Every structure is written in structure tokens, then in C-alpha cells.
């Protein structure tokens, strides 16, 4: 069993399952609309030249979010 980490700790090309989004996250609802929801698979694709934001593959789309948003998202590496 792998540990639960926050999404910003996920390295490039690693895949994880979403556990939860902290309700403090102001983007919670938007992220859910984009398909970041309990149980969905998320893959870290690449980061910007300044390491932030990071692009994730989620339900076939590439979505970029800032690291201070992704730290609200708990995931489990698979």
C-alpha cells in the first residue's frame, strides 16, 4: 500500500488516484467539474519552466493548476 500524499508531491509521469479535495480549496467545485473527484485517476504530465503551475492529465484532458491549489488535493500513488 502506498502512502497518501498531496498532489503537488506527485512527480512527473507518476499516476495516482484522487482521495479527496480539502474544502478550504476555493477551486474545489471547479476541480470537481473538471473530473478531479474521489476515485478518479490523475497523472502528472509536466511543469512550467518555473516549476509552477503543473499540468495534469485528467479524464483525457490536460489541466494546469498551481501548486498551492494541488496541495489541497490528497491522492494515492498507483
Amino acid at each position, binding site marked *: 500500500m502506498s502512502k497518501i500524499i498531496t498532489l503537488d508531491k506527485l512527480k512527473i509521469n507518476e499516476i495516482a488516484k484522487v482521495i479527496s479535495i480539502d474544502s478550504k480549496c476555493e477551486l474545489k467545485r471547479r476541480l470537481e467539474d473538471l473530473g478531479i*473527484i474521489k476515485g478518479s485517476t490523475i497523472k502528472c504530465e509536466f511543469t512550467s519552466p518555473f516549476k509552477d503551475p503543473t499540468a495534469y492529465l485528467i479524464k483525457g484532458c490536460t489541466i494546469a493548476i498551481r501548486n498551492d491549489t494541488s496541495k489541497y488535493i490528497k491522492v494515492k500513488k498507483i
Partner: protein
Amino acid sequence: MIKRIALIGNPNVGKSSIFNILTKNNVHTGNWPGKTVGNKIGKYNYKSNEYIIYDLPGTYSLVSHSKEEDIAKSFIESDDYDIALVVCDATCLERNLNLVLQTLEINNNVIIAVNLMDEAKKKNIDVDLNKLSKTLNVPVIGTCAKNNVGIKNLLDTIESYEKKDKIKKNKMTIEKINNESSKIASDVVTYHDNNYNKKTRKIDKILTSRITGIPIMIIGLLIIFWITISLSNYPSDLLYKLFNTFGNYLFKFFNKLNINPIITSIIINGLYKTTTWVVSVMLPPMCIFFPIFAILEDYGVLPRIAFNLDKIFKKCNSCGKQALTMCMGFGCNAVGITSARIIDSKRERLIAIITNNFVPCNGRFPTIIAIISMFLIGYSSNNSFLGAVILTIVIMLGITMTFIVSKILSITILKGIPSSFSLELPPYRRPNFIKTIINTLYEKALKILIRAICVALPAGIIIWIFSNININGMSLFEIITQFLDPFGRAIGLDGVIILAFILGFPANEIVIPIMLMGYLQNNTISDYNNLSELKNILVTNGWTIKTALCTIIFSLMHFPCSTTCITIKKETNSFKWMFVSIIIPTLIGMIICFIINLLFIII
């Protein structure tokens, strides 16, 4: 009977492409989420029926986060339409189904168009449209709007659709909707190849890498400018010569007809010359720059620019999407300001609006190119690379100023911390080159010509009248420019340049023509047979490198044009922010020009 159709869907799935095909419109469609702002309404006729179609801004769900999503949401909830045509992206149907399910909760009169079927096929993704239709109990049509595939089928389906009584369903939680769409998607979509976005990934690795990301953007900009300057110099010169020769014939022709010399002078020296100058100096660079830019936009490069620059914007307490509004500002600042609606936070939207003017629009951009070509490198010389380098530096200066002003605004009058944001990076898509080039040329060239005629003509007349009304032996033009002169000199310019900028308020395209007219009021232009000789006019009127530099800087940083001001007022709903947007760039431009002037005096 008239049927009303609401076009709804996730951002960047091709709603506008479908809208364009149905209404035979030619509005440019980009490849980035948020291209369409506000409602577009179109009409079409099919088999003796009339249809009204509303192109709504893209939205991920019917819970609004931004101004744009709110428009889509309230429209779908209203009774202002008969059928909701939900456009989906075949390559990521699962997420798109969230919106379909939410729409079905509100209204059961839904038709689904699964667009981008060609892209899905290329990526080896199979979508079972029949199964989807049966599952949801609504008509489903596969389309590929770019290549006009499936459109007839879509038209027939809309035509034969019988409106059902509206049934409102209970709203599901977002979790339930997500689960439901996952279930449906796994039923109807088959992936034959898990590496379907390999190519996009490869390009992204280069365009966003730590080492190459930023340099590639700057070099790319430089190359585009180089192409623009080197390709436009020759046609500019040619057009100028042609107009000049024709003007001389026109002059002789008017003389032969014994037309009053005053009228001849107004028409030839006022109307004809300003207009033809605008056309010959402005048109060629724009006809080269904008198609290239539109092609890059269609490929999907713009969101990557926003992605690369977001960290810097975040440092300035603003939003990476501001980069998208800046890119739009290249075309027209008014458009850039409207596009700021994609920014969710009101504070960050205001910052984007106020700073948008630091990107030169299609009126000022060729003005800057013209001064560089005319004064710094010469039209006939082969120094277009140097010109491109100078232009790149100027644009970078504008971008740097955007960052600085954004930062200053967010620690003073627009205090706040950066809000969170998400940005979708669409796959790279090969644009339809010919269509994009023709559309942009048609849209831009026509717009410029119309603007040239609408603004250059009256401006030409005003200048002519100013220079022909004499008070105490001095023309009104001289009186005004002499009054403005000391002020102009203090910031490295002169009275004529200042007056040209003031008269250029309705459209920046005419700043240079007005300037030249001002200098030439005692001269006849026929002495000058090609554009390179225009430098002589400037030099005889006291221009030096310093004047050219200051004019370029002031062109980059001064009050926005009238249309932009009106747009700012409309978008912010306040005169205060309009004035702020006028004062900030003007003040900064004046300060920088003052410093440049001082430096030249000291050195």
C-alpha cells in the same frame, strides 16, 4: 415556425466552428478555452424553416464560477430557446458528459453533437454514438465541424426534432454526475491506444521545458517580427509609389476639370494622402503578422504561453490567463479587454484590463514598425533582422511594464493575493491554413481599410483646415503645435508629434500620417518618391535617434484609443477604472521619455 437553438458545451470543443458553419459566418475560431466571450446570435434557414442560434460561452458546468459561465447558465435555465444543442469533444467525452447530464436536468429538449470525431479517429478512440443516444434518450450526431462532416445530418436532426414538454429533474450532486458520466463513457468509448496524445506531449516537453520554454517564446516572437518586417517592406514601398503616381495623375485630372484649388487640395492633400499612407504603411505588416499569429493560435500555442508565464504573473499577484488577454491585445486592445472575462477573480480581471494597453494593438504595432523601418533601419536596406530585434525589445519592454504595473496595482489600489486558477491545455491541432489565412486577411485587411477611411479622412480634413486657417499670419496648426512644443521637447518629442497622438485618439493608425502631414504642410508630398525618403522629412524637422526612440516608447505607452476607453467603461462599469487605464500608461510613457531625453542631453 422559428426554432431557437442554444449552443452549449465545454470550452474549446468547437461550438464556434459549428456556429460559423450553420450561420455561414467567418468569425475566427481559436484553439484555446475562452475564445468566445459574450453571446453571439446568428440566423440560418434550412428547408424553408428559420432558425435562431445562440453561441454561448464555453462552460464546464452549470454552476457558475465566472462572469462568462454565468451567462451560459442563466441562458440554459431560461425559456429563451427551444433546443439545447450540446457540443461535446469526442476525445474526452467523459468530462463533457458532466455538462450534458446537467443540461438534461434542466431541459430534456437536447441534441448532442459529438464534435472532433476526426481527432478521435486519429487517436484510435471509438465512440458508439447509437449507444450514447439510447442511453440518454436524445439524438446524438457525430460531427467534424472543421471539415464540414456531419453537418447535414445535424441540420436534418434539428429540423425534424419535435419539442417535448419540459420536464425538470431533481439535481444530482456533482459526485453522482461524475460517476454517472464515468459509467456512460466506459460503456460507449473504447480506447485502442493509450498513447493517443504522444505527439502533443512531445511538443509540450519542448515548449514548456525549464531550459527551452522561455527562450523559444522569445525567439519565436523575434522570427515572426523578422518575417513581418522583411516581407512587408517591399510591398509597402511599392504601394506607396503606386499611390503616389496615381495621386499625381489625380491632381492633374482635377486641374484639367478646373475644380476649385481649395477642393482639390482638400481631396488630394487631405483625404487621399492620409488614407493612402495608412494603407501603404500599415496594411502590409498587418497582413503578414496576423495570419501567422492566427495560425499559432489555431495550433494551440496561446495557452502554453499563459502556462509558461503564470509563475511570473503569480509573483505579481495576478493570473496567468492575463497572458491570453495580452495576446488578444495584439490584435486590438478592446478585444483584449473583453477577453479578460475569462479571468475569474474581479481584482485580477481589473489588473488585466488596466495593463492591456502595454501591448501594442494593430494600430500602434505597425506605427512602431513604420518608425523602425523608416528611421532606424530604412525601407530599402536589408537590415530587417535588426528591425526585428528592436521590435522584440520594444514588445518585451511592454510586457515587463505589464508585470511591474500589475505588481504595483496589487500592492496599492487593487490589493489582494493571487487567486487559484485552472487552465486547460488543449491538444495541438493542425489549422486549416488556407481558411485561416483568408479569414484573417479578410477580417483584418477590411477592418483596417474601413477604419482608415472612417478616421484618416476626417483627420486629413481637420489637418488641412488647421493648416489653412491663418491667424495673424500664422496657421492654426502652427499655433497649436508651437503651444505643445515645449511640453513635447521635454519628453524628447515635439509639438507636431504630441498633436498627432492627440488627434490619433480615435485610431492610432493615423498618428504617423498626421505627423507627416504636419511636417509637410508647406511642402508637397510629390517630392518624395519612396518611403525611405520619408526619413528626410523627419530629419529636416529635427528628428534624431532620440526622437525616434521616444516616439516608439510613447506609442507603446500612452492613453488607449477611444474604442478601447469605451470598452473599459463597459467592462468595468466605472469611469474611475477607465481614467486609471488612461492615466497610468500615459504617465509612465511620459516619465520614460523624459528620462531618455535627459540621458541624451547628459551624454
